[in-house]
Every structure is written in C-alpha cells, then in structure tokens.
C-alpha cells in the first residue's frame, strides 16, 4: 500500500468536494485497473478517461451495506465506494451513468440514484475481495433490505455485477 498516494487521493477528494468546478489531473493507477470512467467528467488521468485501481477506490472511503440479494443466499456484508463519492471524485457532470460489465451487459443508472444512503460500488463481500468468478471485481449494490423501493425489477436490473466500465452522459 502506498500511504502517500492514499493521502494525496483523500486530499484531492476533499479539495474537489470544496471546489467541484475545478478540473484536476488524477493520479495514475498503479495496480490493475478495475474501473474505466469516460464521458462527461472533469477529472481524468488517461486522456478523456479516468482509470481507477483498487487502491484508489479504497482511498475514496469505505462504505458498508449489509443486505440480502436475490442472487445469493443469506445476508452479506458488502464494502465499497459510495457511488456519489465516486462521481464527485471524477467530477461527473451528466445525469445518466451507463454501466457496462465484462460480458458487455450494459445498464443505465440515473445520477439521481447516487445519494448519501444510495448504492455503493462494492469490491468486498463478507471480508473477501470479490473475484471475477464471484461477480467481481466490482458489483453495484443497493441497500435492498432497507427499503421496498429498492426491491423493484428496475433496481435489480441496475445492480450490475462484473462491472468494469462506466460512462457519464
């Protein structure tokens, strides 16, 4: 783990939060890239896109959701970055997120879903990092158990797994 990178990412996040209109050059990922963000974003590190590895995602702050899903048995504890935090980090300016999985499954998530208590982009389940064989490396998790509003077909369809690309429109 690179402490310095973590600190600088936090610093950038805090400064972005304070001055969201200011474009920043994001640090470059050092590990394998888990997520590629393109489209209407302010902050980039590779041309028009922003590439993020696990360390960078962890550095944005861990959020926890404990919930059941229709695809897994029992309750699970998911850890990941809050979608809202991520969007702020990359300076998203559109109103729709086009999320695409490894197998090219694609779904649209309205920016309005990204609230303080809304979905996270999970990278860890029950203390284990999500592997690709286990719907990893990233899985959009809504707090299904917390509200009936999250247990609809639309929300289930937005809960995309094996996520690796998003595009802001």
């Amino acid at each position, binding site marked *: 783990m690179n402490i310095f990178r973590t600190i600088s990412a936090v610093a950038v996040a805090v400064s972005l939060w304070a001055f969201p209109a200011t474009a920043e050059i994001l640090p470059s990922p050092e590990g394998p890239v888990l997520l590629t963000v393109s489209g209407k974003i302010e902050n980039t590190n590779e041309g028009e896109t922003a590439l993020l590895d696990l360390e960078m995602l962890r550095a944005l702050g861990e959020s926890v959701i404990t919930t059941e899903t*229709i695809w897994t*048995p029992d309750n699970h504890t998911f850890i990941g970055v809050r979608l809202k935090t991520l969007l702020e980090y990359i300076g998203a300016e559109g109103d729709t997120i086009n999320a695409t999985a490894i197998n090219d499954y694609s779904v649209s998530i309205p920016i309005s879903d990204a609230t303080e208590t809304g979905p996270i982009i999970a990278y860890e389940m029950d203390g284990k990092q999500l592997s690709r064989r286990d719907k990893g490396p990233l899985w959009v998790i809504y707090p299904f158990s917390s509200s009936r509003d999250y247990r609809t077909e639309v929300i289930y369809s937005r809960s995309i797994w094996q996520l690796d690309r998003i595009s802001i429109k």
Partner: protein
Amino acid sequence: MLLVLIGLLCVLSITFLLSEIVRELRFLNSARSDNVHWALSQAEVEFLDFRNAVQTARTSTSPDALEDVVVEFDVFYSRVVTLRTGTFYSSLREIEPFGNSIEEIQNRLDAIIPIIDGPRTELRAALPTLGNQAAEMRPLLRTAATAGLQYFVERSDQSRENFASTLLHLALLATALVFALIVLLVYTRRVGNQTEIRGQELADAYARLNTILETSLDAVVVSDLDGRILNFNPSAERIFRYSQDEVIGKNIADIIIPDHFRDAHDAGMKRMRASGEQRVVGHGRVRLEAKRRNGEVFPVELALEKAQAGEDEMVIAFLRDISHSVAAETELVEARDKALAGEKAKTEFLAMMTHEIRTPLNGLMGNLTLLEKTPLSQKQRRYVRNMNISGGVLMHHVDAVLDVARFEAGAVQSREEVVHLGRLLQDIVDSQAIAVEMNGSHIQWGWIGKPAMWVRIDSSRLQQVLLNLVGNAIKFTHNGRIIIEAEQTGSTLELRVIDTGIGIPENEQERIFGDFQTIDRADSGIQSGTGLGLGVARRFVETMGGELGVESAEGEGSVFWVRLPLVIEDGPEEQDTTQLIEDAVTGCDILLVEDTEINLELAREILSGLGHHVTEARNGQEAVAKADKHRFELILMDIRMPVLDGLGATRAIREGNGACRDVPIVALSANVLPEARDRFVAAGMSGFLPKPLDENELQRVINQLTSRRHIPAETPRPQPRENPLQDLLDRYLSETVALFAWFDTKPDDLAEIAEQAHKVAGSAAAFGQPKLRDALVAVEMAAELGDRDQLRLAIDAAKEVWQDAPEPTLP
C-alpha cells in the same frame, strides 16, 4: 337498519377489493423476478462464449486467447453459481432436471478450476480436454434451460389464471357493489320521500294550528318560564290592544298584569321556576284581572297550561274578557236582591195583617167561649156554637192567605195527626148547616162502603180543603142538595163534595184552580171571595200527596173529589172534655203579661175558670219587675207590648238574677209564622200559645210545663209523628247557610243585617253554637252602630266561626 347493513356491506366489499388490488399490485411491483428467461439464455450465451474462447485458443498461439478463456470461464462460472445458489432460483432448483443439471455443471466446472488457475502452459495443454468437457456440459445446460423455461411457462400460466380469477372477483364485487348502491339509492329516495311527506304534514298541522290560534275568540298568550312573550294571537291583540310585533320578547308582567297583581305574579313565576310548584297552571279556569294598553283593569277568565317544546318549557295562557258578563251578572244580582226585598216586604205585610186581624178575632172568640159558660137556652147555645165554628172558619181564611205566603217561601210541611174522620166530617156539616139552610138547601154526609175510623192525616189542611169545597157548593146551590161522600178503596181515601147547583162550564173547569180566579155571575147574585180558595186547596192536597179534581155539567151540578193516601190508625180511648179538665192541674201561680185590656181580661177569665191564681202585668218592664221579686210557676207573655216587648222581657228575666229566671215562659202571639216561633225560642221562651187562646190548649201547656203536673190523668193524645225539634234544627241550618250566602252578596241595608244576624244568633245559642252566636251579635251591633268597616270585619269573623263551629245539637 337496512341502511346500516348496506353501508356495512359496501365498506366490507370496498375493503376486500382494495386488499385484492393491493395484493396484485405488490405481486407485480415487488418483481422478485430477474428476467429468468434472460438469465437462462444468458447462461447459454456465456457457455457458448467460453466454448468459442476455448476453440479460438486451440487454433491461436496468442496469450490473449488464453486470457479470454479464463475471463469467459469466470463469467460462466459466476452465472452458474448464481443459478445454483441465488434465492430467486430456489423453486426452479426443486425441479429435478434443472437442479441436477446445474449441480453437475457446477461439479464439472469446479473440477476444471485447477487447470484454469494453473500455469498458462498447462492450460494450453489442457485445451482439448476443456473442449471435451464443454461438449459434455452442453446437453446438461440445454436440459437445465429447457426445464427452467418449461417451469416458467407453467408458472406464468398459473399466474395468468390467478390474475384472471382475481379480475373475475373484482368484476363480481364491482357488480355487487353497484347493486348495493342501487338498493341504497332506492332506499334513500324512499326515505327522502317520506321525509318530504312528513314535512308537508307538519306544515299542514302548523297551518291548522295557526288558523285555530288566529281565529280563537279567547286570547292566547304564550311565554317562556321567564315570562318573555313568544306568541300573541289576534284575539289577544284585540283584547289587550297591543300588536303582536310590539310585545314579542317583552315580559308578560309589563304588558298585561295589573300593577296590584305584579308581586303575586312575580312570586308565582319564581316559585314555578324554582320548585315546579303550580298554583294556577293546570287548575282550570280561574277569575283574575288583567290590564289593557290604556291601563284599564278588567276581569278575565284565565286558564294556564304548561307545555314542553323540545328542550324549553313554556306557559300558555288562555284569557277571556268577561267584563261584559261580569257587568250583566252584577245587574242580575241587584235585580235579584230587589226582588227578594220585595218578596220579603210582602211576607212582612202578610204577617202584620195576620196579627192585626187575629187580635180582634182573639177577643171575639174568647168572649164566645166565656158566653158558652153562662146559662143559655138551647137555641142560644146552638147559635153560640155556630158562631164559634164560623169564627174558626174566619180564622182559617186568614190562615189561607198566610198559607199562600208560606207556600211562596217554600216552607210548607204537612203536619199529620191521628183524627176520627167521621167526627171531622160531622163538624164540617154542623158548622155549615146554617149557611146551607139559608139557601134553602140540605146537607148531609155518609160512607160509601166500609167506613174508616181513625186515620193519620193533616186534619187542619183537610178541614180547610173541605170547608172550601163545601163553601163553594153552598154558594152555588139554591134549593138543592149537598152531599159529602167518603169511600176507602185500598190505600186511597176518596172524598166527594157533590152539589145540585149551577155547575161549571167545561172550559172553566181547569181555570178555577188558579190563584185569584173567581166566577162572577150577574144573574146568580153571588158575592165573590178572595179567589184563592181552590188554588190553595189544590196546593194543600198535593202537599199531602193526593189529588183534587172536578167533574161538572152546567145546570146539573158539580162533583169535587179529593183522593188522599189512607193511613189507618188505632184510635185513642174515648175521653170527653169534662174528664180532661177534672184531671187538669189547678191552682197554679201564674204571671199573665198582656197590654190589650180585652185580651188580658179574656185570658184572666179563662185561667181563673180553670182554677189558677193570676197576677197581671201590662208590659214587659212591669213583668220583669214582678218576676224579679216573686217566683211564679208559669209566665204567659204577650210579644208586642209597649215599653219593653215580650222578647226583651224574657231575655231580661233569663239573664237576670231574679226569682223567676228559670221559670217556664210561654209566648202568646197572633203571629203564627214559624220564623216568629224561632225568635221566641231564641229569646229563651219555653213554649208558644197562638192567639186566640183556646182553653184546652192552655190547660195542656200548663199541665206540661208546671211542676205540679198531674201525671196519671195526662191526656194520651197522639203525638205528631215528626220531631218538631229536628225540624227546627234543619231550618236553623238552612237559615244559617242562607244568611251567609246573603252576606256574600254584600247587602247594604244595615237594619236588615242587624235583624237577620239577630235572628240566627238566637238560634245559634239554642243549638249549641255559642261562639257563632257571639260573632253574630257582634255583626248585629256593628250594623246598628252603622260602622261599615267594623261590620265587614265582623261578618268575615263570623264566617270563620261558622266554618269552624261544631255540629249543631238539639237543645
């Protein structure tokens, strides 16, 4: 009830429908269904991707191709895990072909994992094995997909059916609901109609009530319990001269209550509000006074009723203006008082006349009695006897006039005694013989059939009636015959006076029984009588419970018949007059008080003749003085005397302390009216002897009242059946009632008040009501002093005493 039931049904139906819909909506909304079809086909797609990647890697040497195999393996693996463990597919897994196939695929994939995760060189070497493995997995996957699809088709059918049935239920419920609503509508409409009809009826009733109120002749005033006027009908407007608008809401006390009733009214309303006590309300009509707008106070008849109108109580007053009828009533009372006064004057006049005629008669008859005791020839003796009888007849005439007056006063009672009928008839024939002979006629009497001897009858009345009939027969019969026939049939006695006179025309036969009816005939030369005879006779007969009638043919004669109830009695033993006198008490010491010289001498002669010792007094004063000094055995007292009259003298003797205060005092009076006798008793007198004095009567009284009574020889005369004292008591009671009724009419004549009070006062003492006597004496005194205020108080006090007085007792 029906309404409530239908409402409940509706609510239940709606609730049920809603819950059904919500359930369906939830089922649709909560979409636990990931798109299963998509998931299954996706699994096949991903499997094919994996197989293609394996295929591609076998023909290519690029390391990326190997990397693709790993990625596609992971993606497929992830899908299979989802299908094998996802809660959403748990029901699907229970179908054997699907569950087993997935389980098998998972096992095969798990077996491949070491190759995938191993070094790439080994992976490349194992590619042909992977290809074989994939070929073996393919039919498994196909089976799973087909089974899953089959399951979901069935499920979908089930779901559709459920949904269809729910919709059917919804439709049925909706129909039921509509039906219920229609019933409700019809019911509501009917209730609405009824309400409308009731409203109309109420309006009609109100209109009728209003018409009644408006056309009522009585004033109707409605107020609340505080006295505020709520309603004032047109009659009230007319009577009180206020319009309804002026008085609504004002206090009834300010409008129609006269000032002098204000306090009583306020107290009454307060009492009713506080305790509900009602003195006038609900007690029918009462007479009160009310006030008009101009302040005029007038009499009203008032009826108050309390009524409940919803929560409020109200008082309804029905008032009738009776000022006219009260005025008419007052006039009537005055007219009656005047008439009564006239009637009284007549009675007084009659009493006076009786007295004036009886006094000289007294002298005449007395002297005849004395003459009878002197030596006389046979002829003279007969004349004297006839004179005696005619005198008696004259006395009867006077009495007849008196009787008419007494009839008018309604105070006639039959006084029956036991008499020998034959003797009575013989006496009449004897007394009339001379008159008959003067007309050249002949008179006789006789029984037809079995004779009756002693009978109980009002002999005095019968005698009067027969004398009247015989007298008439004599008058109208010349040179003819007069026969008196007596006949008893069962319990009836019929007496017929038959003459052969001029007869009576048929058209006059009824008229002759009227008062003051006379038959004047120029040719007969007959002098008319008073014309009272037959009228009085018929009244007498009727009083005795009988009938009097006539049959006559003009020119042939008349038959007057009398039918009376017959009561036969055992006669007393025969006694003659001499015997009676021999048995009589003699030698009494008697005080005789009489102012008229002739009467004094007459009475003295009779008394001396009977062997008594007589002391004389010329007036009441002298009598009191003599009675004070010497104790007599009996005092005979005239009533009308100068200086002090008989009543005053009697009172003085009784109230004084002289020698004679308890000696019997007997009144001598020509006034035979019962009222007069009561006065005598009230003054303290012990008995009464009518003038003219009869020797036998006198002796009887002396025998009765003196202490030397000769008991064994006492005449066993039949006593009158009725107790005269009881009669007196009854009369006293009716007179007292009459007196107070008269007081109530507020009489004005002070002298009259004094006299009437005096009269009843005397009786009151005698009948054991001394307090009433004192109270009435106070009235008398106040009247004599002319003190009207004092008089009013005294009358009120007397009234109270009268009401509280004990029952009167016989003296």
